């Protein structure tokens, strides 16, 4: 194991976060705070409790999930896309590092960032709404697992994208809609039966549901199903990354 290389890449990526503190941390925190102000306080006060939880508190896990998913994907995709774009990737390809080490370092850094960000948002939320975390260990586990899984997804997008537009495309056109429609702001029990069945095809439902369960003990789908789905995504993305490196897809000619 080339531990020096993993460390070098990881620290390089974390240094990038420090340089871009405003857009990496401050911007997501502000936008999430706006959600709390609007949905939690202004509109939320007129919405009845869901499963005995105030609406403002109900949306906290979903909002954190929204940030976690988008930030994991954008962090990791940018981290590997940019060296490709600036062609400094020659260095990574010519270095004595294994594919596993590359993924470990980049995905590790992206997941660290999005996890930290989620915890900051969680702390921010507690300033606006009364919070309760029934299963803190499960909460952290879901957080970390989702961060790693979707950083891996972002890494795949970063390798796949050959221009900046494609880089923005997936978070914008897939992640955000799926998260909004995945029960971040409502319980899918509120939907008519047909749309409820359709919604169950949305993978984000399982992520949000499991995460919300760790807060309030109630969920749209069984927590075991949520965990299995998250692990399933992890396995799928790992398989894709492995294939990409093995074939040199968009990395090597």
């Amino acid at each position, binding site marked *: 194991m*080339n531990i*020096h*290389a993993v*460390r*070098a*890449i990881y620290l*390089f990526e974390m*240094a*990038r976060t420090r*340089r871009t503190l405003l857009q990496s941390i401050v911007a997501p925190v502000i936008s999430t705070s706006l959600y709390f102000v609007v949905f939690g306080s202004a509109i939320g006060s007129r919405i009845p409790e869901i499963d005995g939880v105030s609406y403002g508190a109900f949306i906290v896990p979903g909002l954190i999930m929204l940030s976690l998913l988008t930030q994991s994907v954008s962090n990791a995709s940018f981290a590997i896309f940019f060296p490709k774009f*600036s*062609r*400094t990737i*020659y*260095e*990574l*390809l*010519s*270095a*004595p*590092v*294994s594919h596993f080490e590359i993924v470990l370092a980049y995905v590790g850094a992206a997941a660290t960032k999005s996890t930290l960000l989620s915890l900051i948002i969680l702390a921010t939320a507690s300033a606006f709404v009364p919070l309760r975390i029934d299963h803190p260990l499960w909460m952290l586990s879901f957080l970390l697992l989702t961060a790693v899984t979707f950083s891996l997804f972002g890494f795949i997008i970063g390798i796949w994208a050959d221009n900046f537009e494609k880089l923005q495309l997936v978070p914008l056109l897939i992640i955000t809609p799926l998260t909004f429609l995945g029960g971040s702001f409502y319980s899918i029990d509120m939907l008519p039966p047909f749309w409820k069945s359709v919604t169950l095809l949305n993978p984000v439902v399982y992520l949000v549901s499991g995460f919300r369960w760790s807060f309030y003990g109630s969920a749209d789908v069984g927590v075991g199903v949520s965990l299995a789905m998250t692990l399933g995504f992890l396995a799928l993305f790992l398989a894709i990354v492995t294939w990409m490196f093995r074939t*040199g897809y968009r990395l*090597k*000619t």
Partner: protein
Amino acid sequence: MPSISHPRPPSASPPVISVVGLSKTYASGFCALRNIDLEIRRGEIFALLGPNGAGKTTLISIICGIVNPGDGKVLVDGHDIVRDYRAARALIGLVPQELTTDAFETVWATVTFTRGLFGKPANPVYIERLLKDLSLWGKKDSRLLALSGGMKRRVLIAKALSHEPKILFLDEPTAGVDVELRRDMWQLVRRLRETGVTVILTTHYIEEAEEMADRIGVIDKGEIILIEDKVELMRKLGRKQLTLQLQERLSAVPPSLARHRLELSAGGEELIYSYDSGRERSGILELLKDLGDAGVRFKDLHTTQSSLEDIFVSLVHDGGGVRKQR
């Protein structure tokens, strides 16, 4: 010709890079390399010459791991570049042709990063010396985007040397750099060779190869068309000319000198004698004797030798025929 002494590694020593039957066809169908066989000797400076698109960069990129090899095999110090890529790559430093650097990092950060990437523990003392050697110390905290092209080139060299490689690839190292940096670079390469580093450089500047290389390889259309000791190459293919400046203008070469195949130039004020520097007898003594007998007097004389550039052009364009002297 000055006698150039260049250290010859013992012939028993195995080559530091060995390329056997290497071919590469890109997905587009373009065949960049055809059945390349090449051995780089330990500690030498090897210059790879060839026109644009000849396959120089592809060859280097495959050895360094940036491009997937096609058929064939490459060993770096005995390590297969695919199976044993870690050991192979750890030995190599690469200065790419293009000025591809990060933008927002500092010089210090980017050089330290590369050292780590290549699996070496941090060594600030070594990095400091390296940056000083490359006149980069004053810029160590500057961000890369603020540097001039020449400085960026120095940074790329520092990155390539940051992990103390045993083999250094310089892909067009002096393309677009000023005279001072070129001098510095030549000096650096010589210093590296003294410490036992093998240097492989590709270049368009043939004077560079002529100045620095121990051996020359010429690649064209994906094939190695020549590998030769530089001195040997110059001797074998080099044509020499002896120019005699005459005291009195001649209207024609005297018949008694016909066997020397002289040419009259500069309006009859100069006689030019071409000969092969590789031959044991240049024929100059006979020529001078015959000139004396014919009563042709000259006031000055000088010799010129065809440069590597002439040789190169003749190899690539004239299909191997030795071009006449300039």
